């Protein structure tokens, strides 16, 4: 049996004296080496992780260690960690070293979590397959010919392949939940503004969240409760206090669950995924919960709204990468304009350029009202619909993705087919509500299927408790 799959197990071993932080780090380092071909990690902090482990071992022996002592984390390559490179998987940030640490990471370090390395992802978090990375593809450990999902593909595989205890990803439209579904891991996108974005390299500021991958719900809850909360460095971060999610996992109520008709009857939904989802809904009914199918007429507007607004923000957020101050600068320029054009043409990948152009277009004076203003209105409608629904129901349950992990290159020439991967995940992103993906068995080819649960804003505790209950329910079968 694989070791160190849960933080509870790690803590028990540490308490019993069966292991040490150093041994745990070494265990993961070995795994990383053995599975290097998966290309999950783009950089491993071997030296500093081992030193940190020794330091925490000492703390443990004097009883002064933080609550995450023994937890080994990987971080997505869009998070800033002082003195370490942060490339956002882009050539334009090649060689860029961050001069400060993201608030989320700092809070984890303060509780003695060990950061073991930096994880592959789609460039600036733009993609659903991890194929848009200057670091190359990350392979899905369930089938190495298939994508791990994206954009946080490396973070998902790192947990899936037991290369660390848990990992940080970011989720703008499904970038944690979709790869979690593809890899059979637990992945949460918290409520927008729940975790400070200070130190998160922005893709779309009003959507970006930092999320967590783990093997089980409890580990996930522990990481999120540690890094969440108000932050002076992010004026948009919520001032609401953070409950200790990991201590609130007990679930014993009769839940009201909504299931969206348009989602379950979507043409894009694969049969096996549909069946797995129906099965779990049946089981919930059997357990005495109320499950109701409700209309979601706005489903067709969710993706266009998401892509108009996120690309608009991205086109502006990525303007700072111009070769003037840091990162890549073209060697081929002969004047200012050509420096801008060549630096950005050579530095950004195809998908990023596509989104910058799309965003620039929807913000341009002649099209602003037709696209940006309208999309903002629709966003408000979707948000209101979702929140109202979640006032009536405790949870919305649906498949995380319409399909299982696809093959490399399958959507290469069809960006829209790729965008459809996000069909079910963007609703929570557009609305700002929290959503979690948990494993829901495998299809007949052994490929993981994900189940997505949404709750109302700042109801992460309820979300975790229900997710935990569902995991138990499935395994009791």
């Amino acid at each position, binding site marked *: 049996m694989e070791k160190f799959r849960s933080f509870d197990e790690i803590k028990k071993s540490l308490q019993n004296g069966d292991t040490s932080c150093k041994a745990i780090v070494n265990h993961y380092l070995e795994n990383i080496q053995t599975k290097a071909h998966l290309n999950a990690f783009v950089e491993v902090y071997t030296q500093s992780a081992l030193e940190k482990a020794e330091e925490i071992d000492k703390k443990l022996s004097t009883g002064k260690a933080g609550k995450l002592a023994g937890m080994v984390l990987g971080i997505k390559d869009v998070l800033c960690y002082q003195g370490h490179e942060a490339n956002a998987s882009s050539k334009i940030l090649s060689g860029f070293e*961050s001069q400060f640490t993201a608030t989320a990471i700092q809070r984890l370090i303060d509780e003695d979590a060990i950061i073991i390395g930096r994880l592959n992802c789609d460039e600036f978090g733009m993609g659903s397959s991890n194929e848009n990375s200057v670091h190359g593809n990350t392979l899905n450990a369930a089938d190495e010919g298939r994508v791990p999902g994206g954009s946080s593909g490396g973070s998902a595989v790192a947990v899936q392949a037991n290369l660390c205890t848990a990992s940080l990803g970011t989720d703008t439209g499904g970038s944690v939940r979709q790869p979690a579904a593809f890899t059979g891991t637990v992945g949460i996108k918290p409520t927008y503004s729940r975790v400070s974005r200070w130190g998160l*390299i922005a893709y779309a500021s009003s959507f970006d969240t930092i999320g967590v991958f783990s093997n089980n719900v409890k580990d996930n809850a522990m990481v999120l409760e540690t890094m969440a909360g108000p932050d002076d460095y992010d*004026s948009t971060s919520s001032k609401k206090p953070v409950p200790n999610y990991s201590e609130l996992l007990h679930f014993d109520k009769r839940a009201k669950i909504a299931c969206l008709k348009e989602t379950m009857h979507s043409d894009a939904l694969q049969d096996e995924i549909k069946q797995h989802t129906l099965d779990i809904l049946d089981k919930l009914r059997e357990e005495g919960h109320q499950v109701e199918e409700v209309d979601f007429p706005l489903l067709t507007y969710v993706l266009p709204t998401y892509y108009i607004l996120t690309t608009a923000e991205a086109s502006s957020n*990525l303007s*700072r990468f111009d070769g003037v101050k*840091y990162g890549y600068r073209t060697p081929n320029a002969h004047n200012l304009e050509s420096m801008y054009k060549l630096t950005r043409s050579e530095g950004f990948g195809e998908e990023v350029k596509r989104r910058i152009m799309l965003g620039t277009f929807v913000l341009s004076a002649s099209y602003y009202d037709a696209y940006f203003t309208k999309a903002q209105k629709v966003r408000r409608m979707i948000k209101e619909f979702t929140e109202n629904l979640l006032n009536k129901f405790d949870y919305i349950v649906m498949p995380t993705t319409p399909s299982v992990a696809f093959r490399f290159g399958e959507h290469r020439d069809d960006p829209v087919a790729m965008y459809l991967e996000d069909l079910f995940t963007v609703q929570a992103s557009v609305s700002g509500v929290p959503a979690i993906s948990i494993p829901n068995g495998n299809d007949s080819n052994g490929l993981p299927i994900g189940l997505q649960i949404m709750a109302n804003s700042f109801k992460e505790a309820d979300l975790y408790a229900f997710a935990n209950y569902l995991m138990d329910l499935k395994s009791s079968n």
Partner: protein
Amino acid sequence: MIEETKTAPISTGIKGKYELVIGLEVHAQLLTNSKMYTSDSTAYGNLPNTNISVLTLGHPGTLPKVNKRAVEFAIRMGLACNCEITRRNIFSRKNYFYPDLPKGYQITQDKGPICVGGEVPITLGNGENKTVTLNRIHMEEDAGKSMHLAGETDTLVDFNRAGVPLIEIVTEPDMRSSEEAYQFLTEIKKLVRYLDICDGNMEEGSLRCDANISIMPKGSKTLGKKVEVKNMNSFRNVARAIEHEFDRQILLYENGEDIVSETRTFDATSGTTSSMRTKEDLNDYRYFPEPDLSPVVVSEEWLENIQNELPPLPRELFEKFVRDYDLPTYDAGVLTDSKEIALYFEALCQATQNYKAASNWLMGPVKSYLNELTLHIDDFPIKPEGIASLILLVDEGKVSFSVASQKIYPEMLKSAGRSPLEIAQSLNLIQDSDEDSIKPIIEQVLEESSGKVAEYRAGKKGLLGMFMGQVMKRSKGKADPKVANKILIELLEK
């Protein structure tokens, strides 16, 4: 397209057919210690790229944070101009590429500026009063500076100024002459200095002005195509640029040519403007709401505090000086020109009732001393009470004004703290107003020049001054001129 049009002078007859329409956009750099969205210093004159951090440089992962003090300063200006204050402020991004703009966008306010509407009263040279209506005042951040050093082929950028808070004051197209524009700017400069929010120095760039200028035939209601003129580094140059544009646009109109809606730059040497860019290649700034900042809410309490702490405004003081101190408008204007002089005057008026004398002292001897040594009134060695006792000394007839200003005042400047009376006594300057002691001197003078006395009595009244001069000389300047004059006339008319 670069054109240089040296326009021929246009006859006033032709000029009289047109109306000049001017709107101004004034940027004022706020005197906060830290920048608009970061805690980096705003100190002026530091070595390039020392007032910077990851925030100023727009490093990935950084987020802005609004400087409350800058918001307060903007509100102060808004209250002083009678604007409506926006309670829920959102910010916008103005997107464009330039090396001195670290994030690739400027965080500014587009829809929903902090101050809406408002007005600034101005007084023209002929005494006419006019009110310039404001469109808005909004908050934004400054850009860095590109530097072209000798011997360097590359352009270098200094980001010290990047992120320094600005307010932009935008008027309606309300002004009708270069003088009105000039007076408006003068008033704005006065206001920002009174409010302590900007040092108002246009030459150093802490106050900057762009002018939107158009013409229309007199009586017309439709505004002509507007031309925006930039790069004027003094009030005088703003006026010159407007005059030039007026002529240039009339000439185009008279010749049946199109006036192009464009941005032009002013050249101070030639006094002309030339095209920078036309409307067609204008940037599309793609404004959209800044998602990285939560709205700044101005609470009732906060607004009240700012209102209560607002210093007296130049116009209020002007009116008070005219109304309560009975000063001529000229005096009131000069005294309220600078806040510090006005406050000194106020203090002086607490110590003396002779307001006109107080005004004369301040506008005369005090100002000339400050000008000569280029001192600030804060560094003036004599306290208002000192000047007040000097005024009293003259009013009591103990010394003449000329003795006070030429003999005692210089001593007071040299040794601050010495009372004027003590100086006058020690220098033996107290004038003699005792008729019994002055009369013999006068009698002696008249006796010695009996011929002149006869001439006077025959009608040559102009000789009075000559007799007075003799008397003052004989008394070593100590005879009270008023008393001496009275006795002199008495004796001569006898």
